[in-house]
């Protein structure tokens, strides 16, 4: 084969702060669940550059990432099926912001977020979803519509969810190659996020020396460069969260965060230390 994939690294490969600068204040930002590869180093860069007014959509839940962004004042609104620290309990800054009414929380349920992203992925205005009826989520979501299933003989109400099209998807993965292909393994919700979002920014553990699409063993877990706007290398970029398959969560670090973030002053101290260490 004579063909070599485009050498677009120069255009697509940024440093971490340049990547974070691509996320403007007010952006509608999709972020993955803790088990998917969370861009924690990029999150700290966002806090450093004092991002404001972000509208998060968690795919479908979040933990420490959303909590830090909320605590640092970066977030205006969050659409989520759940924010918590897993084994370490409630997410303190999310909980405090919810109680004080300072955060606009758009309640969702996991399959609704997946389906609404799939609607954008497919270029359709909505997706149907079973369930939901009789829940107070519907009252919280005037954008969700109940119709009668047009294929049923008698009344069969079901919910239609409007497409969710984030401005930007942000996540952390193991590799990017020089063409901008990104290896996500079996974390396919990252592909859906990227397909649905207008732009996708990725941090990776390392550059992959070769073409991720050239070999079937890597191609089947690869998000093609078609969807990737820019990437930055951030070694251990999910820390203290895990990058499943490569490293586990740093349990002690998350526990310490869970304790510190319970108070405003503790969170301020944690943030200050973290950002100074990262600078």
């Amino acid at each position: 084969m004579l063909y070599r994939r485009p050498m677009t690294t120069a255009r697509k490969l940024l440093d971490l702060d340049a990547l974070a600068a691509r996320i403007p204040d007010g952006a509608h930002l999709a972020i993955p669940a803790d088990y998917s590869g969370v861009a924690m180093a990029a999150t700290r860069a966002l806090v450093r550059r004092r991002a404001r007014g972000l509208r998060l959509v968690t795919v479908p839940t979040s933990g420490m990432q959303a909590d830090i962004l909320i605590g640092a004042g970066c977030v205006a609104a969050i659409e989520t099926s759940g924010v918590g620290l897993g084994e370490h309990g409630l997410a303190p800054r999310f909980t405090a912001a919810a109680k004080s009414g300072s955060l606009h929380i758009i309640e969702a349920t996991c399959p609704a977020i997946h389906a609404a992203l799939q609607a954008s992925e497919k270029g359709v205005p909505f997706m149907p979803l079973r369930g939901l009826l009789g829940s107070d989520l519907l009252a919280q979501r005037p954008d969700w519509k109940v119709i009668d299933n047009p294929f049923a003989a008698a009344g069969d109400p079901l919910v239609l969810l409007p497409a969710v099209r984030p401005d930007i998807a942000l996540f952390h993965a193991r590799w990017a190659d020089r063409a901008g292909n990104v290896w996500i393994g079996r974390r396919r919700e990252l592909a859906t996020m990227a397909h649905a979002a207008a732009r996708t920014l990725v941090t990776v553990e390392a550059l992959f020396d070769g073409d991720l699409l050239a070999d079937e063993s890597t191609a089947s877990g690869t998000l093609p460069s078609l969807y990737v706007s820019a990437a930055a290398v951030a070694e251990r970029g999910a820390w203290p969260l895990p990058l499943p398959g490569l490293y586990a969560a740093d349990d002690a670090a998350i526990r310490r965060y869970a304790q510190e973030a319970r108070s405003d002053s503790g969170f301020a101290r944690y943030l200050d230390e973290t950002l100074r260490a990262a600078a």
Partner: protein
Amino acid sequence: MNDASANEFLIVALARMIEGCRHVAVGNASPVPGAAALLARALSGDAMLVSLLGSLAHNPYTDGGRELFDSAGQGRLDAFFLGGGEIDGQANVNLVAVGPHDAPLARFPGSFGSAYLYFAVPRVILFRAEHTRRVLVPRVSFISAPGTSPPGIHRSGGPTALVTSRCAFAFDRARGRFRLETLHPGHTAEEVRAETGFDYDSAPEVAQTPPPSARALELIRGRVAGELAETYPSFAAREWGRAA
């Protein structure tokens, strides 16, 4: 009763409720249900398939986060565990907040997949260790997922049981009411009535929840502890001194 810890006792009680299922999934932040599913699998001679959210080794899914919900929609998921910040006597579950949504008195993480899975999974086991009037309320203040649905609503699943640190209830979907089934050792029907905020049915004589067998305890402390530690390292370390 043997030397089972409180959590071990609950793990066995929950495992009993999913016996015979082909495929059981466990959601976020659920170490006791996770251990129960792993135990039930071990006791089934590995005939049961278990999907543990957040696990790599004990999760067959390869189509991303939606596959759990899609497979439930296909009818391929037999049982699921669900918790609740509040649970009421109609088996409505609140995972969101107590009080007004924009200024709540208490805030929980969120509804997760409950509003969907409660409709789609034939056997949903409610589990909440804390058994107080704070949790088991007359009426939840936010319905993340309703316990029952009126006729005409497409629904193939729903709650079948509620297990707490004190007892196990069965849920009668037609009547929309719980019935006290068994009491854990050391707990009484009067105590349960006093600590439960909702009304429920009860037999005049309530049986005891059977204790763990020696075989179950051996499996929990060996194989199950090792398997669970991948996803719940803190719990496994606290409970059994196990690292992943």
